[in-house]
């Protein structure tokens, strides 16, 4: 049984169907990538799973418990933690305090980290501990977002475009940090558009289009799938691309 099981998940915003019956199984020992064109429902999937938006239908269960619509903070307390597409922080507080807030929340239920400083070391932000979060350069802000999420001691981390806005070397360094997580018992599910990075990093890829899952499997298989190529490259360019 996978730790996170999503069954028939639906989300409608008025007349727009953002998620149309999604089924997912995600364990805590892998890196799973979710890809798809803009508007395919990737971020909505994260928002509904983590309780930011209520589901219109279907169920989400985590470690055997139904967590559909129980509220964002309760889901985070069950160690299912997400980051946001826009790099988020507590901007007026120091980097150390940002991580400490998350760490203290996680510590109430037993933390894998002995101190907030360990998390800063892990993501490489230790020298910036006393800087004000709002004054960080974007790359560091992305790391801080990850550090805050890790502070809660997640068992599964949902990363929404962690590489967006980073340059190549920053993105590679970030990917290296992410790759260290599953061996430590922190599963990762991430959304990103960088196909090279995704196929290197992910053990499994899931492709969404118009709110439905159109493919799932090993990265190489998925990228060779004709339906996926059609969605990404358009039907007319299929021949040119292959």
């Amino acid at each position, binding site marked *: 049984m996978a730790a996170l099981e999503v069954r028939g998940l639906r989300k409608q915003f008025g007349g727009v169907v953002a998620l149309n019956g999604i089924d997912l199984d995600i364990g805590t020992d892998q890196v799973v990538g979710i890809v798809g064109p803009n508007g395919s429902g990737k971020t909505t999937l994260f928002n509904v799973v*983590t309780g*930011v938006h209520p589901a219109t239908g279907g169920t989400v269960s985590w470690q055997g418990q139904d967590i559909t619509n129980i*509220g*964002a*903070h*309760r889901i*985070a*307390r069950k160690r299912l*933690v*997400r*980051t*946001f597409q826009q790099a*988020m*922080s*507590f*901007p*007026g*507080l*120091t980097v*150390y*305090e940002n991580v*400490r*807030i*998350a760490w*203290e*929340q*996680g510590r109430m239920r037993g933390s894998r980290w002995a101190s907030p*400083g360990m998390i800063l070391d892990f993501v490489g932000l*230790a*020298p*910036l*501990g*006393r*800087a*004000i979060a*709002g*004054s960080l350069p974007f790359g560091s802000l992305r790391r801080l977002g990850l550090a*805050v*999420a890790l*502070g*809660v001691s997640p068992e599964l981390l949902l990363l929404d475009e962690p590489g967006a806005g980073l340059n190549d070397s920053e993105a590679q360094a970030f990917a290296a940090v992410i790759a260290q997580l599953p061996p430590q018992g922190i599963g990762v599910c991430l959304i990103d558009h960088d196909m090279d990075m995704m196929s290197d990093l992910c053990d499994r890829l899931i492709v969404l289009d118009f709110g439905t899952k159109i493919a799932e499997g090993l990265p190489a298989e998925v990228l060779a799938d004709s339906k996926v190529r059609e969605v990404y490259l358009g039907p007319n360019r299929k021949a040119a691309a292959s």
Partner: protein
Amino acid sequence: MPMTDNSAGKTGAAPEGVRARDRLALLTADNAAVPLPAGVQAITAILLAVLLIALPWLGLGYRFLSIAITTLYTAIGLYGLGLQFGQAGIMSVGHAALMGVGAYASAILSVQLGFGFWTSLPFAMALSAIVGGVIGLPTLRVGGQHYIIITFCFCALFVVVLTNGGTFTGSATGLDVGSVTPLPGINFDKLSNNYYLVLAALFLALSATYLIGNSRYGRTLRAIRENEQLARSVGINVDLHKLGVLMVSGLFAGLAGVLQLYYLRHISPTLFGAFPSLYLALMVMLGGARYLYGPLIGAVIVNFLPEVLNLDPVDSRIAYGVCLLLVILLLPGGVGAGIKNVYCAVRGGLEKQGGGTNGRA
């Protein structure tokens, strides 16, 4: 933890040869999150305590001491407002009404049931806390300016209810109470003893504010102020804590209200209306809601300004307006922020002179 170069951030470390714009940046810098060394904190606290305890012995006169008592009980209410606004980011312009709930609860308990100061105090504080929480319910749906208008409405409604409450609330005339029940050997009819009573309460309020500000609870509140969505995503029950901090703020307001009642010995609805509420908001912004001594500084400025400059009530209102404009333009964090920014700049300058030793703070 390694010390980083603060001048790269928003800290106000002033370089040599500051230009006018840099000087302004020094004032408007946000150093609220920069921790102060324990030694500096302790010295400030001791100096302030000595000054406040010695005040009645300085021979400044009856009138001065009366204004000092007004300042101190106002400051107690402001510490509650400072907590909800400075830490959790929820502003209110109806805070005098919350003090009024405490004052009227205590006065009604005294008139109807014969409760004295000490017995009515816990009930008055509890009622203020509950009312604070109930008015806070809309914060779960609306924030910022919308909530401010709701608190303003509560304030107006409260005055209407009191004015039409018949003999129960004393209508427009208000209610009278006796003096504070004496403790063995201490008669609170003596003004200096009343001053010490209020001062003791202020020390409680200050200590509570300090402890909350440095606790996990305080950090939770700041997380909500800074980013509600992120706060939820790390497991903080944002709704519960918003109501909670408004209830804690209500406790402070109730205490301040009862002290006000037993100092004045007579209360009427106008004391808790829109104008006093706006003054409270002015004081907390003037002093700096995020700083430990900000609310006290704000209360001192607003209460003593007319006295020092010899202003009549109309002139003093104009002076308050000018003060508020100056604060918004020059010191967005309040006078407390200005003092801390100067301190950070001086320390930054000293560290630079010391050859960049990266000294720990």
